[in-house]
């Protein structure tokens, strides 16, 4: 009878893993050593700059004595970075929105909870309406001009408006492009291709320079609203192509079956086709939201102080000259957390939706 012999020690455990993945051949060994050298060159100096040699406590520039980063700069300007120039007495309004947003997102992220659909609809429909009144005033709240909006708050507003409004427009454009009516399909196609063919910055230039010419004398849009319209159409065009991909992925039988059941075009789309095709493209939709979120930084070029714009702005404060590294690293970290979080969420969703079929 054969005896079970344990594998040799160099084939299993940590040593086995190292041999297999890092030192399997002579050139792999060389590659590993080169890789380790690069890590050695980059990681320790970076970590000591960010953490070990950095200054965390203090209130003025004079406290920045260490050789590493001086996070006092960020700490002292935190209010500006998060709220822009929003009046101090009214900050609670922004805080309520931050709170509602965080709670709903956490709710959506926790697995196996009920009523996720309700929360999702709240986030996409009711929450934006609440925000309009909260942020700009009305219903007994004091008016706050949009030129005072700024920082992370403004970035989230632009990204949020872009996301909420561009989705329905994008769906309509996608339906239009797939329509059998030649005029509708041609117009939608032209609209989509024109917006997709030009860079966002020219769209923003157009929004800030040309929109005032389009409107009758006396009608004057706020700079933020102009930018929002530009961002909205731009991102709707990209979303339209994503949604169209989902529509094309639908088997023809779905259309035929709904027509055989006597549904009208709109009922067929709303009840049968869109729910299924949107589900397929959710990861891609999140992908274009990530792109939109990153693109919101461009509004600083037309003079709005979004998150990155405010970081640039506080860097030019004479009291804090020479701290641009800290500002950029901090901004990069925040953007990264948002974007990477969204992309991981979409990957998770993709896996979940995949097994559903």
């Amino acid at each position, binding site marked *: 009878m054969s005896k079970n012999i344990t594998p040799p020690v160099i084939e299993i455990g940590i040593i086995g893993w190292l041999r297999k993945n890092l030192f399997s051949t002579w050139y792999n060994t060389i590659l590993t050593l080169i890789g380790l050298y690069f890590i050695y060159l980059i990681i320790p100096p970076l970590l000591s700059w960010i953490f070990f040699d950095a200054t965390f406590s203090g209130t003025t520039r004079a406290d920045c004595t260490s050789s590493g980063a001086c996070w006092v700069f960020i700490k002292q300007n935190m209010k500006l970075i998060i709220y822009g120039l929003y009046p101090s007495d009214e900050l609670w309004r922004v805080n309520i929105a931050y709170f509602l947003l965080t709670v709903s997102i956490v709710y959506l992220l926790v697995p196996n909870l009920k009523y996720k659909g309700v929360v999702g609809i709240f986030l996409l429909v009711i929450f934006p309406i609440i925000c309009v009144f909260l942020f700009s005033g009305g219903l007994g709240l004091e008016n706050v001009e949009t030129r005072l909006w700024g920082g992370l708050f403004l970035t989230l507003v632009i990204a949020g408006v872009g996301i909420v409004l561009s989705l329905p427009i994008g769906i309509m454009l996608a339906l239009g492009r797939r329509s059998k009516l030649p*005029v509708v399909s041609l117009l939608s196609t032209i609209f989509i291709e024109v917006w997709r063919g030009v860079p966002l*910055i020219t769209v923003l230039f157009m929004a800030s320079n040309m929109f005032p010419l389009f409107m009758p004398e006396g009608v004057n849009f706020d700079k933020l609203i102009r930018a929002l319209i530009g961002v909205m159409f731009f991102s709707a065009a990209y979303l339209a192509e994503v949604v169209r991909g989902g529509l094309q992925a639908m088997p023809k039988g779905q259309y035929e079956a709904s027509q055989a059941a006597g549904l009208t075009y709109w009922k067929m789309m709303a009840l049968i086709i869109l729910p299924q095709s949107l589900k397929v493209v959710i990861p891609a939709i999140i992908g274009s939201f990530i792109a939109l979120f990153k693109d919101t930084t461009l509004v600083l*070029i037309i003079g709005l102080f979004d998150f990155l714009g405010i970081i640039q702005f506080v860097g030019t404060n004479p009291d804090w000259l020479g701290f641009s590294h800290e500002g950029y690293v901090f901004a*990069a970290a925040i953007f*990264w957390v948002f974007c990477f979080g969204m992309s991981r969420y979409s990957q998770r969703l993709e896996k979940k939706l995949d097994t559903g079929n």
Partner: protein
Amino acid sequence: MRPSKFSNFIFNRNVQGTFYQAITLSLVILGVYYIVQNTAENMMARGLASGFHFLGVESQFDIGMTLIEYSPTSTYFDAFIVGLLNTLLVAGIGIFFATIIGFAFGIMRLSSNWLIAKIAETYIEVIRNIPLLLQIFFWYFAVLRALPKPKESIAFMDSIFLNNRGLFLPNPNFSEGSSVIFYLFWITIVISIFIFIWSKRRQNRTGITFPAFYFSVALVAGVFFAALAATGFPVSFDIPELKGFNYKGGMKLIPELVALTFALSMYTAAFIAEVVRAGIMAVSKGQTEAARSVGLKEGLVLRLVIIPQALRVIVPPLTNQYLNLTKNSSLAAAIAYPDLVLVFAGTALMQTGQAIEIIGMVMGVYLFLSLFTSIIMNLFNRSMRVGER
């Protein structure tokens, strides 16, 4: 009850379709008419004349970097061309480096070496998720602007200098006789192409292979160096020198261009790396195994089986990334690199106020590039489809 003629008419699908289209079309026409009407009134009120006459007018502003002759007495049209060329320059350099870095990281990402794969993955995930504008600012304000003054510049091999005024490179100087080498170089390239065709044909006919690649490299390099030696090295390099407060001579790349190229190529490279990875992974494992089992060497497996099939998947999204890079180069406006958007949609628009014409022209350039690329891509896809089963 039989349906009446009228209800027959209004429930007819064609009639309904025509009706909806008529409504859409008239709404669009009304909207456009409204906008045109308002614009005409507004322009009249501001004393602006529509049309492209302004293109022939003296621009009266200077541009920091020009590839063609340009001065404040040049016209607005010249300014447009200068901006366009600057955009194409930064896009060209960016595409070159993004492709190299992107392919390198894409292949590293698939390495069997765990550490190398993780390094590539970290690079991709970090770079992809940080806004490009932030990266441009970082390279420009935090790195290039913070470099030492010309006196303490960073030097590579005493001929390349990097300081806060820009990047200074040696400039090749062609003296008499160098044109001969230039012509010989191109002639040998053409001969090599013919050798490739001939060897391929002969291999198809007889099965005998010919080392066309090594032969061509030897031919081109051999003739090149032989000609160099024979004419007495007519090519010299104009090396930048520190004179006073700045470097003189050589080729100067302004810091805006360097920062923009850095950021654009590193950012796009992260996306290209993912494209390359997806392309290589799309070639099924059976292809590799089959190629090995018919006795091909590893290099040939890669060259004849994997790469041609992977390229078919890679090329369309890759050109899309090139297009994105070109469009993203418009972010140059944020760090004052004189590209099309900054020069034309910025300065020229500010001076003339011809918003519609100018933004129309700028958007037209980008639209043309997009449509041109997509036409090329459609042709490419069609030619690739032939090979499929």
